[in-house]
């Protein structure tokens, strides 16, 4: 973290609102995510976390609000104005709560598909590729190198040529992160990356995310239910409940925030005052 902090956050979300018919799923949420920082988005089930993610990454068009990405080379970009796939092209890349790999393609192929945007012009709309020209071969070799680096990093080299769908759940989670990272993102959005992982795998994930934060100068935005992981690695936490932001702050501040405790554990009843025991 030797790089000086930019004075403005990488992603600036103002008044994000998403309405499905009569249901107000997200109600005027403000959110920021910075480079070299891990930002967590937490909240009880059904609070609207994944909806916020879907708006951020172009899967939903928000009803209202402004999603400003400060792109280092392209300048400020308003994400809500882009087409769905356009958001990923700005460098905001996500993973999914229920893993979405290309199951019958190999792990390496998954990582090469992720580099489609960079490779497509190099294949000159397939013509250079069809003729197997030198420029294309070099571009492909460097894409394979990028993929190989991430496979090594995530300890997936041994299964690089296996069909992604045949891997264990924990491995598939890692492939999805490797795939997102090989797009060379600015902001990595992870939707419950620790879901279904055992404690050892969760610890490895925490180390990995901390490593990415330290080395790659990118922002990480995280939805997670594993409070141990969130409190451990997050620099800043946003809490949403019923579609609205109820708290924001450092892990220590959030841990002691009364509204957060209330949202997670409910209002203490008069005859049940001893309920709960800290965040789980």
């Amino acid at each position, binding site marked *: 973290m030797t790089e000086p902090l930019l004075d403005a956050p990488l992603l600036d979300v103002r008044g994000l609102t998403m309405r499905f018919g009569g249901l107000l799923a997200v109600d005027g949420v403000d959110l920021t995510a910075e480079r070299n920082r891990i930002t967590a988005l937490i909240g009880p089930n059904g609070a609207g976390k994944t909806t916020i993610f879907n708006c951020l*990454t*172009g*899967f939903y068009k928000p009803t209202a609000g402004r999603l400003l990405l400060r792109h280092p080379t392209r300048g400020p970009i308003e994400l809500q104005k882009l*087409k*769905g*796939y*356009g*958001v*990923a*092209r700005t460098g905001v*890349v*996500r993973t*999914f709560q229920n893993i*979405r*790999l*290309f*199951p*019958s*393609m*190999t792990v*390496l*192929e998954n990582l*090469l*598909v*992720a*580099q*489609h*945007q960079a*490779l*497509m012009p190099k*294949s000159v*709309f*397939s013509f250079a*590729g*069809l003729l*197997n020209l030198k420029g294309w071969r*070099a571009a492909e*070799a*460097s894409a*394979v*190198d990028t*993929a*190989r680096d991430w*496979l090594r990093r995530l300890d997936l*080299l041994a299964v*690089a*040529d296996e*069909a992604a769908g045949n891997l264990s759940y924990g491995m598939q989670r890692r492939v999805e992160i490797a*795939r997102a990272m090989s*797009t060379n993102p600015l902001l990595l959005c992870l939707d419950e990356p620790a879901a279904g992982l055992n404690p050892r795998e969760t610890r490895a994930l925490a180390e990995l995310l901390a490593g990415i934060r330290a080395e790659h100068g990118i922002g990480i935005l995280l939805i997670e239910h594993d409070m141990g992981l969130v409190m451990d690695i997050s620099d800043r936490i946003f809490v949403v409940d019923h579609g609205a932001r109820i708290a924001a702050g450092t892990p220590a501040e959030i841990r002691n925030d009364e509204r957060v405790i209330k949202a997670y554990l409910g209002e203490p009843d008069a005859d049940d005052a001893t309920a709960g025991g800290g965040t789980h």
Partner: protein
Amino acid sequence: MAAPASPSTGTPIPLAHRLRDAVIAGLVAMALAVPFLGLRTVNLDQGLVVQAKLAYVPLAGAIVFLGRLVLGLLAAPLAKAAAPLTAWRPPVSAQRLRPWGGPLLVLAAVALPFLPFANRYVIDLGTTALIYILLATGLNITVGLAGLLDLGFAAFYAIGAYTCALTTTQLHWGFWPALAAGGLASSLFAVLLSLPILRLRGDYLAIVTLGFGEITRIIILNWQGLTGGPNGVSGIARPTLFGLTFDRRAPAGGQTFSDLTGIAYAPEHRLIFLYLVILALTVLAAYTVARLRRLPIGRAWEALREDEIACRSLGINPTMVKVSAYATGALMGGLAGCFFAARQGFVSPESFGFMESATILAIVVLGGMGSQAGVIIAALFIVVLPELARGFADYRMLAFGLAMILIMIWKPGGLLSGRLPTIRLSTAKPKPVAEAA
């Protein structure tokens, strides 16, 4: 409370169950036999009369009862016998031969017309098979790689054929420019068609493409002024070899193949030439597809088949990927159509009905979605098998259907259902050190 028994687990089904099952089958057969077998129309002097021949009804019932019973008793041993067939994979030693398979096959195909047993019939059959291989190679891009079910592929075949027919008869183009025009026109129509239907998937997409196939055929049938309607277009230019024709006598200002080479004129020469032209087109198409699979566009096609949402999350524009898959597939369909028109010298809407679309799709599905070798095997199977079975006259389609059913039971994913990776980390060349530094 018997546990559900299946042939594979080996739990025996009690005989009483088998008997009851067979009796039910027999009764159903008897009910069906009354109108089909029990009543006959006979042409007597006083006109057409219905005669009851109810003796057939119990006979049919008895045959089905016995058949069902025997089948039930044999099910377990049959499944056991078929198990190795289902699980069969090419041995590892065969994998080393894989890179040689393609070139050897091409060599064999080139040699075919010059072999002693190759008569007009064999060459003609080979040409037909190659047309279907080319068509199925095109459809394989859309269906097998990109996963977009297309039930109206014959439309692109028809557009290619009619483009060729009309440019050569109305504009007096030669075969080769018409071939290019046929492929491009077909591709262009595919782009126009795919734009409105991109939001659809699965069953809905299949129905719309089915409709498009029929609409194309009906427009051709009714646009008398342009297409000649049901009469078709005749007098389509024959393929030429650098301007040489394969006729007995040279056209005005032209030269024939036999004039130039001094080889005595033989009508087979034209057939062999046609065969080699379609072979070259097919090999070129198969090579192109094999290369495309290894390129970003080909990987995007497969990724789209696997998960469209994941594609979008990686910045891939699904619209462009779908349009390119349709256009590339249609290009090959158009080339095949154009060649078909030039070979026949005549086209009519009848050649491009739904049966044609269904046959091409059957080749792709039977061969194993996405597999080029599978397409070749299945096309040979579908074109050659009905020919071999000509001796069985009316029963050949029945035998054909039976063969299809058996393949679907034993090889539900198609003959060659395994997917080959387009790249392996172990064999991918690392970037040269000097460049990486």
